[in-house]
């Protein structure tokens, strides 16, 4: 009973926000405008939190607010949506609060608040959707909220260009989603997610209807396009033409839509054979692309934008591997991390000054350092893995993901060894590495246990998937090691492709050139 009330209360939050957006239209005073939005968001967090606790402590994993057919459940509070709802609300709250002083004195601060609240409300609706229809409407509407935010300084030509590009990309994504959801509807004859999920769980894996396979592929496309996967990422490199909080909300709240969509429809992904591979491909490529391009960018916000492309890719890639809980972990973790990175991007000069206090690092790692470092972290990993309970999933996919995490952590270990540091620091580094790895495996299994029945169990990978995953692993690990043994300066002097890399391999330039005629027709 209480759960129903809590869910009902939380449900009102986006509604209240939307009412607030309308109400603020008459307001000149920006102080009270900010306050009302913050209060509503805070209310949402407070009412949804007990649900989170309830789901975590009981066997129940979902709670619905039901509407009439054919809509089905309007709102769906389950383990996944509650976590997303709370994360989005917290980020919305912080971004809103940040904008109060940050944009103080701007003529259109109230208008900015309205756009912000509108967008936050729609992201909330999106994650809480219990029906295909609400989900689709929210999916489309968020992009309009985003567009108005990108155009906050509408006289800036680059902002206009970014908005145009985004508009086009967003429509492509909408279209893919429409096809995907349409196919689902035609298959199951309902828009109710709960019924669809049930139908999906009962599909015989030996005879999956082609409609569903196709639906999954379009679902992947929608997600990939929405979450700035290569080559659909160009517009995000110009969003810095809007005030910092817009980037904060976008990178921490809106890009998430792609991975969220995949995890939401994990049962659909689970029965498809091609879609996960497509997703894995896009994700892995974008992850590699983003992660190797971002350190070459001298401008903080630009580099953060490339970094987000990579992280979204990583999250989608993990989902493509069937590890939905790890994907959600990365998604939520990244969202807090990136919100902080953007909002604190003004501290870049302070950070640069602090770096000088670390002295000069003359890092001379040899093959032996690398070997020892890798063995140490590998041992920690094995120890942790064997210490974890039997119930913990031990399959090929998680091993690959674990190996990527371990390789990353080992780079810290190796660098510590390679600077001829004291034994004391080596022990410190071992302690820190163990902590990081422990945190990963703990969180990963905790979130898996929490999601419970809302995601399918990890399937045994086929030979193909195994082969692909092995390639991915090799690629990721080699990138770590190559980066470690090359000084950043050599990026200036290195071979030609280093110069291409600094330019993001011109993908967005070529993509833009290709679409130039279309842009000129889009009104901003």
């Amino acid at each position, binding site marked *: 009973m209480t759960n129903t009330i809590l869910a009902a209360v939380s449900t009102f939050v986006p509604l209240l926000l939307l009412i607030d957006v309308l109400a603020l239209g008459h307001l000149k005073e920006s102080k009270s405008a900010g306050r009302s939005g913050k209060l509503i968001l805070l209310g949402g967090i407070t009412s949804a939190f007990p649900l989170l606790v309830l789901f975590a402590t009981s066997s129940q994993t979902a709670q619905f607010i039901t509407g009439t057919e054919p809509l089905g459940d309007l709102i769906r509070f389950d383990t996944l949506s509650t976590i997303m709802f709370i994360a989005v609300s917290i980020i919305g709250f912080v971004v809103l609060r*940040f904008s*109060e*002083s940050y*944009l*103080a*004195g*701007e003529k259109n601060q109230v208008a900015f608040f309205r756009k912000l609240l509108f967008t936050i409300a729609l992201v909330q609706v999106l994650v809480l959707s219990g029906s295909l229809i609400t989900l689709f409407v929210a999916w489309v509407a968020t992009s309009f909220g985003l567009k108005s935010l990108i155009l906050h300084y509408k006289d800036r030509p680059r*902002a206009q260009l970014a908005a145009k590009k985004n508009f086009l990309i967003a429509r492509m994504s909408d279209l893919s989603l429409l096809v995907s959801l349409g196919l689902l509807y035609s298959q199951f004859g309902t828009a109710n997610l709960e019924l669809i999920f049930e139908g999906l769980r009962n599909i015989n894996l030996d005879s999956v209807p082609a409609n569903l396979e196709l639906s999954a592929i379009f679902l992947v496309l929608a997600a990939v396009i929405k979450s700035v996967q290569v080559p659909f990422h160009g517009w995000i490199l110009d969003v*810095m*033409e*809007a*005030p910092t909080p817009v980037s904060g909300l976008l990178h921490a709240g809106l890009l998430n839509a792609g991975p969220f969509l995949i995890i939401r429809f994990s049962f659909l992904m689970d029965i498809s054979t091609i879609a996960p591979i497509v997703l894995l491909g896009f994700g892995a490529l974008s992850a590699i692309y983003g*992660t*190797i391009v*971002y350190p070459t960018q*001298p*401008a903080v916000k630009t580099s953060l934008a490339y970094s987000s492309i990579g*992280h979204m890719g990583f999250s989608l890639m993990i989902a493509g591997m069937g590890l939905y809980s*790890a994907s959600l*972990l*990365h998604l*939520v*973790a990244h*969202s*807090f991390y990136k*919100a902080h990175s953007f*909002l*604190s991007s*003004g*501290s*870049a*000069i*302070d950070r*640069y*000054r*602090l770096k*000088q*206090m*670390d*002295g000069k*690092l003359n890092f001379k790692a040899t093959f032996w350092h690398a070997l020892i470092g890798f063995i140490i972290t590998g041992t920690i990993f094995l120890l942790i893995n064997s210490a974890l309970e039997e119930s913990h999933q031990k399959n090929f996919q998680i091993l690959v993901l674990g190996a990527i*995490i*371990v*390789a*990353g*952590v080992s780079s810290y270990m190796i660098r*510590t060894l390679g*600077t001829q540091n*004291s034994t004391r620091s080596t022990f410190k580094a071992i302690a*820190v590495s163990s902590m*990081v790895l422990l945190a*990963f495996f703990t*969180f990963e299994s905790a979130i898996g246990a929490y999601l419970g029945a809302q995601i399918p169990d990890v399937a045994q990978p086929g030979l193909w998937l195994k082969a692909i995953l092995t390639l991915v692993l090799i690629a990721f690990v080699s990138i*770590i090691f190559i*980066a470690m043994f090359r000084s950043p300066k050599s990026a200036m002097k290195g071979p030609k492709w280093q*110069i*291409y890399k*600094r330019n993001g391999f*011109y993908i967005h*330039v070529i993509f833009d050139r290709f679409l130039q005629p279309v842009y000129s027709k889009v009104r901003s």
Partner: protein
Amino acid sequence: MSIEQVQEAINKALQRVAPAWTLENSVAVNPYLGLADTTFEKAAELLKYRGDIDLYMPLGFYAQQIEEGRINNADIRRAMSTMNIDMSVREFRGELDYLKGEKAESHSMKTLLNLAQSAHQNDLHELLVNHTSEWLSSFFREEESGSPEEMWAEWKRYSETDLLPELSGLENFRSRVKNLPENAHSAILNGLENLHLKEHLVEAYLHALLLKLVGWSSYASGIDWQNRLYGGEINYQKTLLAIIISWENILIQQNHELEPDWKEALNTLEDELSFKRNNEYFQTQAVLQLAFDLAAQRELRKKFSKSAAYKSKTNKDRPKAQMVFCIDVRSEVYRRNLETVDNEIETIGFAGFFGFPIKYSPINHSKGRNNCPVLIPSGPEVCEHAGHNHDAVEQKIEANGKLNTAWSKFKTGAVSSFSFVSPLGLFYLPKLIGDSLGWSSPAPSPKEKEFGQILKGDHKLDVTGIPFEDRVTMAKSALTAMGLSNRMAPVVLIAGHGSTSVNNPHASGLDCGACGGNSGEINALTAEIILNDKAIRQQLDNEGIHIPRDTRFVACLHDTTTDEIKILNEAGIATSHNLQMDEIKKSLALASQSARKTRAPRLGVNLKSSETEIMRRANDWSQVRPEWGLAGCNSFVVAPRFRTASMDLESKTFLHSYDWRSDKEYAVLETIMTAPMVVTSWINLQYYASTADNNKLGAGNKTLHNVTAGLGVLEGSNGDLRIGLPMQSIHDGEKYQHLPQRLNVVIEAPVDAVNNIIQKHEMVRDLCDNNWITILLLDEEGKISQKYVGNGEWERLEERELQTEIKEYQTQTI
């Protein structure tokens, strides 16, 4: 054209662009520095023509000043007569009413880029700026970027490979770059040759090219400036010029159809001078700017005239304490409040490095920080010392530094950043909330890391890096210049200043400029240590400066954001001074409170909550206006404090204590006029430029700032490096907090002495004769009675005239 002439024109063009510093230690620079040899009015024409840079505000702004009574008819009349314009004020204002609705006409010098741009539609200008800006960001990103030769070679190599220009429609860009000469100098000469410029246009044209990337050009000029001071290679700006002219060159090779246009343009390029004659809007701006400056002078005269009625009460007795502040305009508010709270504390104004131009090296710092004015190279080095187990501590700090570096590489490395975010990203949730509510700050304070241990008393500041004799000389000249040499209170407080803000790329601009964009703690502590040293005192005594045995120098810091005063080395103060210190601390606490109340309205803070609110704002990561810095500065007074003690100078005035009667051969005056006066004009003109044209010489909108290469900001996703001040530093959203007025320097000294110094130093003469600053003299009564009008000549200012003007003003406003 001979090679020498070309060489000279190139050098002249390079000089035209003033240096800029990195945001890590940003100091105010006069962005018109390279034009100081021309008059202000001429510079306005030059910059408008060559770079479409405005030196004047739009007419609407001046019209508003007239409406609000800041400029009156007498000011306009005087301005017109100074500029030899024969017109009645009524006529002039009629014209203004008509013109103010118009838009300023831009009439810029044509370069090939402009021609090509209008011929091709596609935005070549943007391409040049973005391409070059991005490349420069990468080049200057690392600590040790290459030499100027390497800069040229690397740019060439990069541009020979980069596909962007060609993908953007510039065909054959790479092969054309390949054909460029092997060094930057020849590239410039080649470029000039291909463009067939007439001799007398070379400088203007090259200057116009540099102004296309005025931000980076200033930055490169800044590196050259520093390398000149410290010995290093000085052709960075020139290499940048070579890069820009190469673009021009490639354009003309590329587009033969542009040649006729270019030939035609070459003929009209001469019209530079006719620009002003034909432009009413511009001329009206020039008159009104002068009137606006005259208005400021009138205000100052009024203030001094009023205060002269007060009798000078020079405290003959020994005061309870003396407190030396920086000349910074923010000290003015605090000093006023302190003197009101406790009239037994005397305050003194002096440059905030207190005459100790040092370099400070914290333990394990990669390069050390220059805590001294940028006009001079930093002197000897003072360092952080950890006491008896220094070596062990140093090793530990070094080891931790290495761990930190390894950690941050892990955190930001390719792929390894995934291994960081997955397990640790969730920990950013508490951080996000903490930072948002002001419980924590997004990054540790660099100041805290640099000298926090010293302030805590755990580490010591070691000044023995300064040779003993130098310590004595510095002490001696500091005490003499401060006017302290023969009259010292039992406690002399040395108050450096710094600011508190978080998440603010422009934070160091709010710190002490005299300390090279650093907070003043280290300089104040150095002064304290040296001046309290018995051996130094002994030596000073031998040289005729006697410091009373009971006099104790006490270093402190004035936080200009919160107006708190912190005593830096409390533990070091002998118990004999306890009683006095207690009293002083009480007075300081009261003064701080009252200074906050004075400043609260300007910060938009409610008086009732000013105590808590001002502190909260200082630690708010989203605060874009932590304090007003030096906004509003328009005057510099060089006189004993009692002349200004009764005035409310509204935080607009730099105050330097100076008594000409005890200045032998005016040596101190000479120093003041060649150093602090130049620096104050730099600050004033930086604020001026950022207000008059925030787009070109200011940093734009803070909410769009994108820190690049760890040294500066871009506005938005790309574009030129942005120098100067953000809009938020001069404007509160409703009105300007800085009014663009040129600096008025009020000096109390004999006219001949001042005149001699002006004539002796070219730098000072340029400033005064070319109307960049105005010098006003105080008479014996403390009234402003003379004004320097150029060429060694002075104008008497009649008191009667001022009174009539004031009357006229009153009737006008009625």
